C-alpha cells in the first residue's frame, strides 16, 4: 500500500463535493478529511463523503481501497486519526457502533457479522427487544420477525439457530436487521455478494422504497451493472484516496472503471469466447458419486484442460457437491477413478495427495487463518503437502509468497501482515494463491469472484483460462451466469441437490442456463 | 453385626492413610461392618456423608472433622435419628450432647512437648529456631504453633526467627527450608528446625544436607507425628525428636461405643490420646519396623 503520506493533491481526478455541503439542507451525513492509518499503512488518506437524503450513494473502489474502513469509521467501529463527521449538520463522535445505531444509521458490514449461535429472532432484535414487564416478549418478536423476513420472501423457522442457514440466508437477515435499524442512513457493504438474482431484486425494491422515504443509502458493490441500476451518485476511492464523487448521469462504464483502477481495463469477456475445442484426455470420473441426505448420486467425467462451470440457485447443493469431491464430506455411494485407478476420498488429505485444490465459499470460516501472516496463509497448503519434516525455510516462504502477491496483485502492506487485516477481496486472492502454490491438477473454486473488484475479477477470470491452458481441470461454482459463460467449456446445472443438466458448446449461454435452472425443458437441454 | 459409618477427611498425608487403614483394621477385629466415605478435604462432603449414613440408618457414625465449626445442624439430625456419633482426632465447637465422645490428641500439647524438648536440649545457649508451619488456617498448624510458642515463651535465648508454611508436604518443606538456609546466612545462624509434621521435617532434613550442613548436629530437628520415615532419619542421626500422634483413634472409640451400646455406659466426653516424645534413645529402628506395616 502507499507509504507516502502526502495528502491527496486537490487537483486529483474528479471534483470533490462542495466544502459548503455541510450547510446544504438535504445533506444527512458528512465525513470530512478522514484519515486512518494502521501501523505504518494508510488505509484512508484525507477522504470526504457527503450523503444526501433520498439518494443511493455507491461507494466504489478496488479491493483494499478503503471502503469498509470508511464505513467502520462512520459507524463508530473504528475511530479516525483525523477528520470529522457530522449528522444533520451537527458534529458527532461515535465511539461505539451502538451510538451510530441509535443515531439512526443501520449497517450491514462486509463479512456477515451476525451471531451464529443465536436464533434468527435474536439476531434481528438484539439490543432492542420489545419488553413486557421487563421481560423480552418472544411472541411479539416472532410475529415481527416473520413480517420483516416475508418482505424478502424468506419463510424460515425464526426460532432456529442462525448457523443452520446458508450464507445467503444469513446475508438477508443481516440486511433486514440493518433496514429495521436505519432511521436516516442505511449502509450496505457488499450486500449482494452472496445473493442470487431474485433476492437481489427484492433487496433493490426495498432500497428504492427507503430512498423514497428520504433515507440516505450507501451501497458498496463490485457489480457495476448494479451500480448503474440502483445508484444516483458515486464516490470512488483508490488506495485510500478520494478519487472523485459524481452523479451517475455523467458517467459511462469505462470512465467509471478508469476512475477505480486508474487505468483502462482490457475487457476480458470479448477476448474469450467459450471455445468448443474438444477437451483432451479424461482425467477423472465420478461414477454415481453421492451422499445420502446431502447430494444425490451424480455422474461426471472431468478432462484435463477443461473448465466446468456449476450453476444453480442458492441452496441447490453446489457447495455440498464440492465438499464431497474434496473429501470433506465422505461419499457413501459411488466411486471415483483417476487415470483408470480407483481412488477413495476419506479426507481432504487424500484429495490433496491426488493434486486437488479447493477454495471454499465461506472465506472467513473455512478459508483464512486470520492471525497468521499472509505469507504463512499462502504456503500452508504446500507445506501440508510436503509434510511436517521438510519445512520451507523463511526465504523459500518469502519467495513463494512474494511471487503470488505479485502474480495475483494482492494488496498488503507486507507479507507479514495478519491476513485478517486484508480487505475481503485480497483475502480471497490469498486463498487462491494457497492452492496454486501446490500446483494442483484439479482445482475446485466455490464462488471465487465473490466480493472481488472488477480488476481482480477480470484477473481471476483470465487466470482461470490460463490455468486451463496449462492443462489443469477446474470446477468453478458461481452465481454469475455471464461469468460462467465466459470461461466454461462445459456447464453443469444443479437443482435440489442433484445434477440436472449438462450444457456444452453452443448451449452455453445465460438464457439456456436459466432455463435449465428454472427446470423448464431441462431434459431438452440434456 | 454392627454397621458403622466413617466419614474421613481425605487422604492428604501418610498419617491420614495410616489412620484410615488402622480404623478399618480395628473395625474388622470387632466384626463391625464399616462404611467408609472419603470427603476429599471438603466439609460439605463430610456433611453429605453423615446425612447419607443417617438416611441408611447405620448404628453409629465416626467422623474425623476437617474443621471444628459447622457440625451442629447435621449432628442434631443424627441425634434425632438416635445415632451415636464419635469424633476422631479433633474436637468441635458444638454442644457436648451432640456426640458420644471425641477421641483426639491435644494438638497444643504436641507443640508444647516439642518446645519443652528443645528448651531442655539447648539449655541456656542462644538458639534461633526456624518453623515449618502446616497449611495456613488448618487447626493443627494453629495449635501446634501455639503450643510450641507457649513452651519457649519463658526462654530469652530461644527465638523463632523465620516461620513459613510448608503445607504439611515434603516437597514444600524442603523448598521452604532451602529458602530459610539462604536467608539465614547459609544456615550457620540456625540452631533448630521445628516442623509441624514429620513429612516437612524429612524434606527439611534433605535441604539441610544439600546445603552442606549436618541435620541433627548443626541444626536440631524436632517435629510431630512419629511416622516411620522420621525414625529412619533418627536412626541415621539426622532427626532429634518427634512427638507421637497415634493413628489409632478408632480403637478407643470403638471400645467406648461397644460399652455404650452394651449397657448404656456413658464414656468420658474427651478421650485424649497421649502425646509421647520419641528421641534417638527410644530404639528408632524398632519403632520404624513396628510402624511401617500400618499403612503410613
Amino acid at each position, binding site marked *: 500500500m502507499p507509504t507516502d503520506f502526502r495528502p491527496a493533491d486537490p487537483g486529483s481526478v474528479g471534483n470533490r463535493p462542495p466544502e459548503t455541503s455541510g450547510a446544504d439542507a438535504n445533506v444527512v451525513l458528512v465525513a470530512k478529511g478522514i484519515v486512518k492509518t494502521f501501523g505504518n499503512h494508510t488505509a484512508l488518506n484525507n477522504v470526504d463523503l457527503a450523503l444526501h437524503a433520498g439518494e443511493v450513494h455507491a461507494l466504489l473502489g478496488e479491493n483494499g481501497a478503503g471502503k469498509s474502513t470508511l464505513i467502520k469509521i462512520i459507524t463508530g467501529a473504528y475511530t479516525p486519526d483525523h477528520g470529522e463527521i457530522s449528522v444533520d449538520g451537527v458534529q458527532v463522535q461515535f465511539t461505539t457502533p451502538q451510538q451510530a445505531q441509535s443515531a439512526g444509521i443501520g449497517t450491514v458490514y462486509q463479512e456477515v457479522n451476525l451471531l451464529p449461535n443465536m436464533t434468527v429472532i*435474536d*439476531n434481528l432484535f438484539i439490543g432492542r427487544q420489545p419488553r413486557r414487564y421487563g421481560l423480552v416478549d418472544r411472541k411479539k418478536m416472532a410475529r415481527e420477525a416473520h413480517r420483516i423476513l416475508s418482505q424478502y420472501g424468506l419463510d424460515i423457522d425464526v426460532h432456529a439457530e442462525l448457523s443452520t442457514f446458508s450464507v445467503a440466508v444469513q446475508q438477508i437477515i443481516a440486511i433486514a436487521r440493518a433496514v429495521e435499524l436505519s432511521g436516516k442512513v442505511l449502509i450496505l457493504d457488499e450486500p449482494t455478494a452472496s445473493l442470487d438474482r431474485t433476492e437481489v431484486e427484492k433487496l433493490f425494491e426495498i432500497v428504492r422504497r427507503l430512498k423514497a422515504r428520504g433515507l440516505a443509502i450507501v451501497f458498496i458493490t463490485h457489480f457495476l451493472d448494479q451500480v448503474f441500476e440502483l445508484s444516483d451518485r458515486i464516490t470512488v476511492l483508490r488506495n485510500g484516496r478520494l478519487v472523485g464523487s459524481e452523479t451517475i448521469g455523467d458517467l459511462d462504464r469505462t470512465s467509471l472503471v478508469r476512475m477505480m483502477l486508474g487505468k483502462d481495463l482490457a475487457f476480458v469477456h470479448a477476448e474469450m469466447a467459450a471455445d468448443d475445442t474438444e477437451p483432451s484426455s479424461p482425467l477423472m470420473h465420478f461414477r454415481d458419486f453421492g451422499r445420502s441426505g446431502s447430494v444425490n448420486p451424480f455422474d461426471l467425467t472431468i478432462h484435463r484442460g477443461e473448465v466446468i462451470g456449476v450453476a444453480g440457485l442458492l441452496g441447490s447443493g453446489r457447495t455440498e457437491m464440492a465438499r464431497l469431491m474434496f473429501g470433506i464430506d465422505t461419499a457413501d455411494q459411488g466411486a471415483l477413478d483417476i487415470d483408470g485407478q480407483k481412488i477413495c476420498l476419506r479426507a481432504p488429505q487424500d484429495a490433496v495427495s491426488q493434486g486437488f485444490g479447493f477454495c471454499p465459499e465461506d472465506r472467513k470460516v473455512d478459508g483464512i487463518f486470520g492471525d497468521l501472516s499472509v505469507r504463512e496463509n499462502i504456503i500452508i497448503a504446500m507445506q501440508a503437502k510436503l509434510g511436517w519434516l521438510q519445512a520451507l525455510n523463511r526465504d523459500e516462504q518469502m519467495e513463494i509468497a512474494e511471487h503470488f502477491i505479485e502474480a495475483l496483485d494482492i494488496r498488503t502492506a507486507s507479507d507479514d501482515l495478519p491476513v485478517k487485516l486484508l480487505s475481503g477481496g485480497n483475502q480471497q486472492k490469498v486463498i487462491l494463491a494457497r492452492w496454486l502454490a501446490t500446483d494442483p491438477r484439479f482445482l475446485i473454486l466455490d464462488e471465487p469472484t465473490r466480493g472481488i473488484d472488477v480488476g481482480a475479477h477480470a484477473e481471476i477470470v483470465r487466470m482461470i483460462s490460463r490455468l486451463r491452458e496449462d492443462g489443469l481441470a477446474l470446477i468453478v461454482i458461481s452465481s454469475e451466469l455471464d461469468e460462467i459463460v465466459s470461461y466454461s467449456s462445459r456447464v453443469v446445472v444443479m437443482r435440489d441437490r442433484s445434477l440436472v443438466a449438462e450444457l456444452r458448446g453452443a448451449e452455453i449461454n445465460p438464457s439456456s442456463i436459466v432455463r435449465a435452472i428454472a427446470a423448464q425443458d431441462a431434459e431438452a437441454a440434456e | 453385626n454392627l454397621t458403622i459409618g466413617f466419614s474421613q477427611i481425605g487422604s492428604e498425608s501418610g498419617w491420614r492413610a495410616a489412620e484410615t487403614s488402622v480404623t478399618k483394621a480395628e473395625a474388622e477385629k470387632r466384626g463391625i461392618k464399616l462404611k467408609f466415605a472419603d470427603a476429599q478435604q471438603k466439609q460439605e462432603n463430610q456433611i453429605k456423608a453423615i446425612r447419607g449414613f443417617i438416611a441408611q440408618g447405620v448404628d453409629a457414625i465416626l467422623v474425623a472433622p476437617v474443621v471444628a465449626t459447622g457440625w451442629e445442624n447435621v449432628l442434631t439430625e443424627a441425634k434425632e435419628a438416635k445415632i451415636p456419633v464419635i469424633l476422631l482426632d479433633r474436637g468441635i465447637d458444638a454442644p457436648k450432647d451432640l456426640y458420644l465422645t471425641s477421641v483426639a490428641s491435644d494438638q497444643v500439647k504436641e507443640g508444647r512437648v516439642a518446645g519443652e524438648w528443645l528448651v531442655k536440649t539447648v539449655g541456656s545457649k542462644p538458639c534461633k529456631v526456624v518453623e515449618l508451619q502446616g497449611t495456613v488456617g488448618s487447626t493443627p498448624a494453629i495449635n501446634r504453633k501455639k503450643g510450641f510458642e507457649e513452651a519457649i515463651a519463658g526462654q530469652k535465648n530461644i527465638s523463632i526467627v523465620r516461620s513459613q508454611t510448608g503445607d504439611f508436604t515434603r516437597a514444600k518443606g524442603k523448598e521452604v527450608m532451602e529458602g530459610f538456609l539462604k536467608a539465614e546466612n547459609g544456615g550457620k545462624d540456625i540452631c533448630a528446625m521445628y516442623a509441624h509434621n514429620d513429612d516437612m521435617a524429612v524434606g527439611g532434613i534433605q535441604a539441610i544436607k544439600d546445603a552442606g550442613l549436618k541435620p541433627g548436629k548443626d541444626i536440631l530437628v524436632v517435629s510431630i507425628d512419629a511416622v516411620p520415615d522420621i525414625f529412619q532419619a533418627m536412626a541415621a542421626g539426622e532427626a532429634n525428636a518427634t512427638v507421637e500422634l497415634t493413628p489409632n483413634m478408632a480403637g478407643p472409640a470403638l471400645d467406648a461405643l461397644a460399652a455404650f451400646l452394651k449397657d448404656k455406659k456413658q464414656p468420658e466426653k474427651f478421650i485424649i490420646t497421649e502425646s509421647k516424645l520419641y528421641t534417638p534413645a527410644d530404639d528408632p529402628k524398632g519403632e520404624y519396623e513396628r510402624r511401617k506395616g500400618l499403612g503410613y
Partner: protein
Amino acid sequence: MNPRYRPLAATTLIFVIAYGLCILQYPGMWSTRILGNFLTDNAFLGIAAVGATFVIISGGIDLSIGAVIGLAGVVVAVLVSHLGLHPIAAFGIVLTMSALFGAAMGAVIHFLQVPPFIVTLAGMFLARGLASILSQDSIPISHPFYKTIMDLYYRLPGGGRLSAIGLLMLLVFLIGGLIAHRTRFGSYVYALGGNPTSAALMGVPTGPVTIGIYALSSLLGGLAGIVYSLYTSAGYPLAAVGIELDSIAAVVIGGTLLTGGYGFVFGTLIGVMLQGLVQTYIVFDGTLSSWWTKIAIGVLLFLFILLQQLVFSAHKAGTRLKKAAA
C-alpha cells in the same frame, strides 16, 4: 422439539436413568430425605454454579468463585461474631462487596484485555489471601437469626427436609433462568459468547455486559458464601476450596459449551444434582477407598460427558452445521 433443547433433555434423561439405577441398587436412595439432602447439601454449589453458567456462556471463566465463597463467609462471621452486626446487615455489606469485586475483575478483563482465566486466578489468590488475613481459624457464628433460618424447613413425609437454603437455591435458578433467557442482558451474554466482534458491531455494549457478568458471578459467589456460612454456621477461610472446578463441571455436564454461546441455566441444576448423586452413591456404597472414590468420580464424570457428546454430535448432524466447532 426444537433441536436446541436436545442436549438439555439428554442431560435430564441421563440424570433420571442414573438415579433410577442407583435406586435399583440401594432402594434406600429413594427417600424424601435424600431428595431433601440433594437440595440442602448442594445449595451453595448450585448458587455459585448459576453464576458460573453466565460466565461460561459468555465465553469466559471464573476461577475465583470458591475463594469468594470463603471470603464472604469469613467477612460475615467477622461482622456478626466480632463486630456484633445483625446478619441481615452483614449480608447486605458482603453482597455489595462481592459484586464490586466481580465488577473490578470484569473491568480488568474488558479494558486491559487480560484473559479471564488469569484475572480470576489472581482474584482467587486475592480473595483467599484476604480471608486468611482476616482470620486463620474458622469463626463460629452463634447468632439466633442463624438458628431460626436453619430451623426454617418444611418437613416432607418420610423425614425429608425442604430447607430454606435449598429453596433459595431453586429460587436463584429460577431467576437466573429468567435473566438468561428472557432479558436483554441475557441475550447480550449469549451474544458475547457467540462472537464478541459481531456483538460489538451489532451494538451490544460489550464493556458494561462483561463487567455485569463477572459482577453477577461474584455476587452469587457471595450469596453462596452466605449460604455456606448458614449451612455450617461459621466462616472459614479455607471453605469451598476447589468449588470452582466442581461448579464448572456442573455447568458443562449441564450441557453448556465452555467455548461459549450455548447453554441453559436449568441444565446446570441437573449438573449439580448429578454430582450430588455421585457423592451420595459413593456414601451408600461405602466400600470405596479414598483412591477408588477419586477414580469412581472421574469415571462417572467421563460417562456423563461421553453420553452427552453422543447426543451433541447427533444434534449437530441433525442441523446442517458448516461452522467450525472450535
